[in-house]
């Protein structure tokens, strides 16, 4: 505890007034405060000091040692206080007047009283990022909004549930599309593919602000590999990869996957395919998966993101903390998360008539990374495949989070 005098007993203190110790404390005016107070006793936290506090405030005092070292704030009911002997600090749960009475006591100069604050686990930015009129929080956090690159001349494949080709935000864009799902067109009934295409390659000036697309001038290749029910098979996905590589896509985004069990080795087929894709100049990006329920349960990175040659993308929230659902590096040999990107409350386009919708998931993080790869590919036309992947990882901004959760850190756009 610091030596600040925030909330220190002031001149308006009324002193011990004989109120009943069970009188309810006033509601705190500041929502950051609980209504209780913490008191630093400069002479330490002895039983004698607790007795002096009792005399000054009328609160029933107990010692933390009475709770066998497991005292909690909840152990203090209204009209009570507890002394943390080793810290020389007391927690008082009384009427503010009872606490202010401390100022009247002879030992007031030996005390510092502060309102008890509500604390929470925080990311590096205490104030969460928010969508602005100009750009979503995801584009701000990744510095896309200030990038001078747009993905011009770079082909980006979105292997997903298809796309709404009639969406006004894609009007005038040359979109090459192909369905790999039996009996279907590329029309996006499910909505997910349109959303992912929007995050990766949405326009600079959408029909409704803010801007949500990372690479507005990238050439869009849509491979429908997931059916209208939101599920697909390895065979269709592999066919989509083959098509995208054959079309010279520098980036292939796969915001899909299936659960990989703890200790399960990654797919040898996908690993070979991803390695060949890299050699051919295509970087495969995949969502790490959303089955975790942090902090209690962290599920291994999904298949196929768990392959070493596929970029596995975890999700962060607007506090730049790890998203509660984001899977983590629990399996060895490729099962790590390689990089992180915004994946909570991500606004993007959606098939009509809704046209726009926010969603959460590592499938919102993966297209951020796919779009940023397109920007990097434009910035360095010689960088493709492994070189492009390395550029992305080198440019990432470190996060004070476990590497197993966020890899190299937060993806960053070139400026």
């Amino acid at each position: 505890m610091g030596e600040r005098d925030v909330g220190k007993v002031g001149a308006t203190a009324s002193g011990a007034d004989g109120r009943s110790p069970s009188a309810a404390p006033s509601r705190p005016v500041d929502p950051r405060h609980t209504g209780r107070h913490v008191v630093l006793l400069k002479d330490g936290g002895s039983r004698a000091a607790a007795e002096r506090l009792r005399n000054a405030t009328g609160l029933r005092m107990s010692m933390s040692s009475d709770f066998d070292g497991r005292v909690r704030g909840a152990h203090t009911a209204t009209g009570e206080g507890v002394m943390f002997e080793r810290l020389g600090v007391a927690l008082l749960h009384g009427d503010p007047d009872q606490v202010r009475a401390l100022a009247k006591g002879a030992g007031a100069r030996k005390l510092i009283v502060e309102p008890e604050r509500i604390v929470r686990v925080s990311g590096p930015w205490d104030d969460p990022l928010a969508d602005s009129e100009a750009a979503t929080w995801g584009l701000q956090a990744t510095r896309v909004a200030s990038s001078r690159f747009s993905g011009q001349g770079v082909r980006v494949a979105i292997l997903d549930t298809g796309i709404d080709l009639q969406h006004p935000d894609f009007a005038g864009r040359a979109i090459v599309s192909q369905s790999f799902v039996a009996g279907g067109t590329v029309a996006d009934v499910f909505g997910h593919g349109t959303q992912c295409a929007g995050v990766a390659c949405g326009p600079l000036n959408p029909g409704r602000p803010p801007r949500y697309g990372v690479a507005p001038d990238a050439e869009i290749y849509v491979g429908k590999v997931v059916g209208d029910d939101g599920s697909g098979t390895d065979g269709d996905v592999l066919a989509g990869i083959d098509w995208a590589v054959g079309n010279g896509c520098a980036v292939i985004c796969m915001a899909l996957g299936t659960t990989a069990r703890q200790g399960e080795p990654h797919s040898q087929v996908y690993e070979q395919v991803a390695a060949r894709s890299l050699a051919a100049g295509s970087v495969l990006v995949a969502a790490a998966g959303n089955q975790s329920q942090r902090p209690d349960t962290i599920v291994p990175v999904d298949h196929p993101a768990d392959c070493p040659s596929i970029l596995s993308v975890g999700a962060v929230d607007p506090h730049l903390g790890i998203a509660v659902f984001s899977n983590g590096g629990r399996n060895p040999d490729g099962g790590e998360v390689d990089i992180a990107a915004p994946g909570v409350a991500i606004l993007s386009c959606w098939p009509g008539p809704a046209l726009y919708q926010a969603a959460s998931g590592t499938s919102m993080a993966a297209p951020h990374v796919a779009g940023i790869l397109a920007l990097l590919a434009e910035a360095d036309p010689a960088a493709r495949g492994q070189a492009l992947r390395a550029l992305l990882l080198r440019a990432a901004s470190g996060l004070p989070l476990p590497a197993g959760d966020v890899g190299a850190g937060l993806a960053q756009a070139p400026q």
Partner: protein
Amino acid sequence: MTDIVISYPSGRWRCVVRRVKVAVAIGEDAFGRIQQVAEACRQLGFEHESTLSGVGVLVGSAAADDVARLRTVPGVTAVEVERDLRHGRAPRPARA
């Protein structure tokens, strides 16, 4: 995964052949003869549906019991049974 039931006229025999969709990865050294590798796989019961020549994969189906034998074909580096994949949206309501 498909179960094919074969019933014999006598009614004394009934055989269930479980077929699974598989992806067969071809080694770099066999890229130039991928159709020969496919033919060798077909002779082991592989029902060949498509060739992904850009990334070196054969897609098709096989009896579950034959999957291990496919791995022994020269030029084949991995054989895996297909899994179902899903979109990667979090199973929670969106927060606008």
